[in-house]
């Protein structure tokens, strides 16, 4: 579904972006055609893993079931999930993602350190669709 957005397993799991060789701008989701910095003459875009850890810029949750194209089973009761916008210091970028299951807004504060881990977006008999999740550091 979103090929090339992340790589690796366990502690090696990382989000993948691209970086402009001329101006250093980082893009996530990846930008593969051209650098979007209007002051840049345009360099090669190289795939780079993003920082594993960042700080919470803000957070919220989703108490109602989102509409399609989000995939959920309408037969099951809705389980709210938290969403965290995370600031990555060296990339100077904010990336939104779901929190790991079990982490609620009550567990979060702005400025808290979180790390990226793999998660399951959806699965059926043949396929598991992986995604990224944010998890407060020091939480197993």
């Amino acid at each position, binding site marked *: 579904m*979103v090929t090339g957005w992340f790589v690796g397993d366990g502690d090696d799991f990382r989000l993948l972006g691209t970086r*402009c060789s001329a101006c250093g701008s980082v893009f996530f989701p990846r930008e593969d055609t051209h650098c979007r910095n209007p002051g840049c003459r345009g360099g090669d875009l190289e795939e780079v893993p993003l920082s594993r850890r960042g700080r919470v810029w803000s957070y*919220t949750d989703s108490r109602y079931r989102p509409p399609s*194209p989000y995939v959920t089973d309408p037969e099951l009761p809705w389980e709210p999930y938290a969403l965290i*916008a995370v600031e990555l210091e060296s990339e*100077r970028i904010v990336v939104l993602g779901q929190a790991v299951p079990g982490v609620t807004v009550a567990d979060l504060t702005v400025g808290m350190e979180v790390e990226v881990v793999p998660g399951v977006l959806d699965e059926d008999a043949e396929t598991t669709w992986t995604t990224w999740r944010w998890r407060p550091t020091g939480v197993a």
Partner: protein
Amino acid sequence: MTAEVAVLGAGMHPWGKWGRGFVEYGVKAARAALADAGVDWRDVGSIVGADTVRGGYPGYVAGATFAKALGWQGARVASVYAACASGAQAINTARAQILAGLADVVLVVGADAAPKGFFRPAGGDRPDDPDWLRFRVLGATNPTYFGLYARRRMAVHGDTPEDFAQVKVKNAAMGALNPNARYRKRVTAEEVAASAVVADPLRLLDICATSDGGAALVLSSMEFARRHGAAEPVRIRAVSTVTPRYPNTVLDLPDIATDSAVGAEPAGEPFRASIARAAYEEAGIGPEDLSLAEVYDLSTALELEWYEDLGLCGEGEAAKLLREGVTAPGGRIPVNPSGGLASFGEAVPAQAIAQVCEVTWQLRGQAGDRQIPDARVAVTANQGLFGHGSAVVAVR
């Protein structure tokens, strides 16, 4: 600074959940605006429609759809899509035609029959569309973003959910006085606090609903207005339609990440503030000149954000301004005297036009029970998906 255009007429179809088609709402609003202007539809030289993407195929060609419904009469036509900024960009298209001498009188129409519940992207699997991706990958609805902004304000500026609720209390009190509003009931802070959480920390009554509705304007050259007997009409003095500046470092709908600030330093002002500044510069006014403002209160917390972006107060001071009553009726700069989206709900292509209808009535002194005394200068402000931002300055 550019030349002015006259607002000869303003009209609306009342907002609600009427269960009918957007064309009907748009035609009703257009006829009301034409009657208000005293202009025969056959004398209109151009029609500009603000597009809806939820009304089926005709919604994408709104200008011609409304022209056909009103009766083909050979006018120039345009249709404009800019998400929530569609209405303001339709006004801007009409203004540009008038100032360029392409038309003397232009009818601007926006109307929608919105779906119940959350807005969602257009159908089909479209992984190269950021609007589709945010739903598919994250389930990030519009209230998700409003919740993020609200929580950020609480952390950085010390705003509280009680502050947010007071925005709703204020706007609902004004909406109760507006016959075109969908919700015409006062709301208490207790009722806001008792409503269900949608996206923490925002509750159902902090977030605007989806609605049906329509709004229309008749704009003309100043010369036509004088010939037409309108010696001192309300005038549009500026329409800002700016895009953000790279790197945009505030997470904006529908993106799931910001631009990186590694390759270029961010501009000093955020995108929403640049929308207002462009309008002020074009109009040759400043926030101190305003009599009132109509802003997109998609959430209560977002209205507070606009106070700062419009320069009504410094950064982080919006809740204080609200608490002091500065933005309430009787205050120095009342905000959303129409009742705002809190009272109207979203009918996307109509709402930026509806804002200009409200300021027109306010500047004419025709706003009835919600009239702001001696209103002379007004600004409207809104922001649409994909980097569309608009503000309109109107004067009398």
